[in-house]
């Protein structure tokens, strides 16, 4: 079984969570080859949610601090420059959870979502060991980036090995 989520499906879900609920403007979807080198250099926060069950994989969000702070400010109802580090982590984790929950019905035979995990740093290169990127969207707004990627694990045996 392979991922059947298309890029437009994923974009609709991402924009539903960010635009409709948070009023957050992510910018335009960038061509995949145009952002592959840029995203890690700008990525300062990442959040992931694992899908477990008959099909397994993960959803990974990565973004720069500016968009992350905007998302957190929209959630907490505060000014962007007043967002604390734990609020930024909470917001991005919740965003990953929300997007993963809406992706889940489109995935084959998935049974459960994990709680989100969040990392903060600089020049983050995000990935899931034992899994490969299946579909993703990256938004660019000026110097800001916001990427969402679905990773697919080849099989349970591959993960165990």
């Amino acid at each position, binding site marked *: 079984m392979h991922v059947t989520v298309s890029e437009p499906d994923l974009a609709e879900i991402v924009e539903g969570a960010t635009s*409709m609920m948070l009023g957050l403007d992510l910018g335009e979807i960038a061509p995949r080859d145009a952002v592959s080198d840029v995203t890690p250099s700008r990525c300062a926060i990442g959040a992931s949610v694992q899908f477990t069950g008959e099909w397994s994989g993960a959803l990974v969000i990565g973004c720069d601090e500016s968009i992350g702070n905007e998302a957190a400010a929209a959630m907490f109802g505060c000014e962007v420059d007043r967002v604390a580090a734990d609020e930024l982590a*909470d917001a991005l984790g919740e965003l990953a959870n929300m997007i993963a929950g809406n992706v889940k019905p489109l995935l084959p035979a998935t049974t459960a979502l994990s709680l989100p995990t969040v990392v903060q740093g600089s020049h983050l290169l995000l990935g899931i060991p034992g899994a490969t990127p299946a579909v993703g969207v990256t938004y660019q707004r000026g110097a800001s980036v916001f990427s969402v990627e679905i990773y697919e694990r080849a099989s349970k045996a591959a993960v165990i090995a």
Partner: protein
Amino acid sequence: MKILIVDDSRAMRMIVKRHVAQAGFEGCEIVEAENGREALEAIRAAAPDVVLSDWNMPEMTGIELLEALRAEGVTVPLGFVTSESSPDFKDRAFDAGAAFMITKPFGADDFTRCLAPFV
């Protein structure tokens, strides 16, 4: 009306609180809990009229909370506010006695529709 909001994310508790107010329930008393176990204690202590609970939480999930409440004979209406939207989760929620399910992302209208019967 007293509403208990249960979610491990403080960000999401704040969003739910804002949407409840925007839905026309700004006069409600809001109580919060971070997971199902805290919610059980809050329900015993605060006797809310309605519980709005996330599904996936550490310590005790939302469905475990609902099952624990019903096992104790507590009939407080509990609705899920969750990103879990699969049909099997909905079936499990309603079989366990959930009053409603609001799927994230949501709008204030969802809270107006779901909370109105309990005002």
